[in-house]
């Protein structure tokens, strides 16, 4: 180094910069500032808003109501319907996506011609925008012009067209099927990466010991991909819980309240009815529920995986 630092002031400044205690914070600061401003401040703002009776087109009539919105919420039958729908929504979609993803990954992990192409094609549903998928499936399900009913009638599985999205008993399951189709490639790709990390020698040793394919799967494959399953599962629970775009485009929450989930209900209240006080109280309540679930999941699953 030919540069020489002459003044003691400058030397001190550099020593502060180089100080190992400060540097990490300085490097983290931009990310923290951004997160605080665009994530935490709106969250705190939402909690405050939920204590107000705030209807957007009557900004001057806004008043503090304390826990009033929450009181109203717990006696609102639509809230309980939406909560139950949310449980079905997460409880079915994530395991189905995971199961289908696991099967796909195991298949794609075998040697077969055009495997590279198959691996690339499988990602398509995941790569398409949700709104495109929702519109596509809305037309597939359409009882008058849709292709699904045509096929089912042709195969004599049903006698007349089923109104998939217009029947309150069926609609939510029809949307779950759509989301399963959209989300399984994510699991497939993650699990495939996990599968490739399992040493071949373990399988060789097991087959020499006479273990069947099924036992190899249970005792080598599953433990090998458990960390991937746990992490991908957690991510998907959070994403699926919050995703309402597909439901919104396919049914708008209907027929009636049959496909209302809590995030969708919050969206409809806040953005369509402009009742921000009540809408945010739904969102805050749901965040608490989801946060509690995620904490529990992390505590249990991660312990299992580490063991």
């Amino acid at each position: 180094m030919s540069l020489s630092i002459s003044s003691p002031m400058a030397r001190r400044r550099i020593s502060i910069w180089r100080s190992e205690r400060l540097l990490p914070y300085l490097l983290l600061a931009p990310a923290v500032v951004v997160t605080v401003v665009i994530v935490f401040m709106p969250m705190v703002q939402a909690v405050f808003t939920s204590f107000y009776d705030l209807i957007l087109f009557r900004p001057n009539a806004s008043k503090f109501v304390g826990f009033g919105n929450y009181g109203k919420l717990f006696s609102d039958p639509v809230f309980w319907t939406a909560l139950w729908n949310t449980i079905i929504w997460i409880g079915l979609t994530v395991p189905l996506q995971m199961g289908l993803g696991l099967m796909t990954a195991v298949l794609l992990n075998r040697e077969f011609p055009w495997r590279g192409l198959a691996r690339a094609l499988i990602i398509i549903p995941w790569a398409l925008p949700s709104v495109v998928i929702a519109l596509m499936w809305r037309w597939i399900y359409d009882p008058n012009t849709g292709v699904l009913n045509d096929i089912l009638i042709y195969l004599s599985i049903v006698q007349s067209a089923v109104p998939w999205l217009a029947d309150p008993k069926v609609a939510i399951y029809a949307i779950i099927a759509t989301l399963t189709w959209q989300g399984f490639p994510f699991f497939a790709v993650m699990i495939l990466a996990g599968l490739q990390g399992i040493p071949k020698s373990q399988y060789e040793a097991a087959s020499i010991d006479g273990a069947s394919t099924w036992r190899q799967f249970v005792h080598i494959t599953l433990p090998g991909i458990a960390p991937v399953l746990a992490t991908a599962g957690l991510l998907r629970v959070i994403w699926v819980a919050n995703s309402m775009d597909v439901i919104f485009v396919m049914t708008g929450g209907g027929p009636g309240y049959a496909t209302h989930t809590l995030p969708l209900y919050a969206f409809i209240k806040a953005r369509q009815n402009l009742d921000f006080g009540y809408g945010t109280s739904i969102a805050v309540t749901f965040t608490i529920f989801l946060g509690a679930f995620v904490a529990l999941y992390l505590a249990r699953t991660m312990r299992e995986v580490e063991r």
Partner: protein
Amino acid sequence: MKFLRTLALGAALAASAAFTQAKAETVRFWYHFDNPANPMTDLVKKFEAANPGIKIEAENVPWNSYYDNLYTSLVGGNAPDAAMVKLFAQPRLAEMGALEPIGKQIDSWQGKADLLDNLLELNKGPDGKQYYLPIQYVVLYLYYRTDLFQAAGLQPPKTCEDFRNAAIKLTNAPQTYGFGLRGGKGGWDQWGAFVMSQGAELKPGGLVKPEAIAANQWLVDLFQKDKVIPPSAPNDGFQEIVAAFKSGKTAMTIHHIGSSKDLVAALGDKVSAVPVPKCGNGQWTSYGDESLAIFSSSSVTDAAWKWISFLAEGQNNVAFNSATGQLTVTKSGSADWKLHERRFVDATVQSLPFAKVLPQTSAVSEFVNTAWQTNMQQALTGQITPKQMMEQLQTLFAQ
């Protein structure tokens, strides 16, 4: 809220600072066109050539979230200067103090005399002031398949009884159904033709009158008992009813002249239109309006007025409507109207005498946006009775 307001104020200040620095005045304008052939660029060019000091930033905002975006941008302080607006939104916008009165400008405007009669009267604000400048209009009527009616030896229905009989005769489930009902979003105006015609009103006590409940029961029975409506109806929106009608799945449906081009392209002479049937002693159809308004938050109201009045004048208005497929609001433009087949224009004109707009109250916006749809779907699918549906909707109009 204080933070939001400060933020909005900051944004507004920054915006106005930017405006004063710029030499040309910029008018931000929001509109919604479904049609991919969009003449807006040409209209903007023509306007800017005639008004060198004014620049137009026209933004096509998707219809499905048009009002959500508009209200939030108004509250957030980032609203456009002018926008396309419908009558049902006027009470909310007026309540927010978001509208700029334009009565004086209209009175001194040379295009006023060319506007069709009565349109300004229909568009008056809840406080009697003029905030809206009409830009296009449609009226809902009944589309029917001439070939299917002829084959069944039927005449287009004039009354609700005729309508039900025809629908029953034309139904051969699951291949064909008599009537394509829009049970999903935006279907309230079809519903109105059968229920508002028989005395239902959006005011205290107006929905729970015995005759209104009976009319609603009659309509739900068409779906549940007579089964003349496709089972998909509870989730059907505009796209679905049009697709079903085009494919021959349904023999009648209710919509306006905006879809006539598309239907003629698919069905040719096999589609025609008549006014909606008379039910009980009344006849009701929805007057579908679209106007332009200037927002009070705008700092360029004069330039904005020049732009919106430009769009409402003679041939400009005709060009505007060629994109939306609706009808011009000018007398000079109507005189040699070539955009639609005569039979659809006739059905529209014949429907005008009993075409109505919904009352201008804030609750009507919620009725139109969410409440009608949710309750209708529940009634159609048997989760509630038609009577309960009317009682629940009545709670919106309790005061």
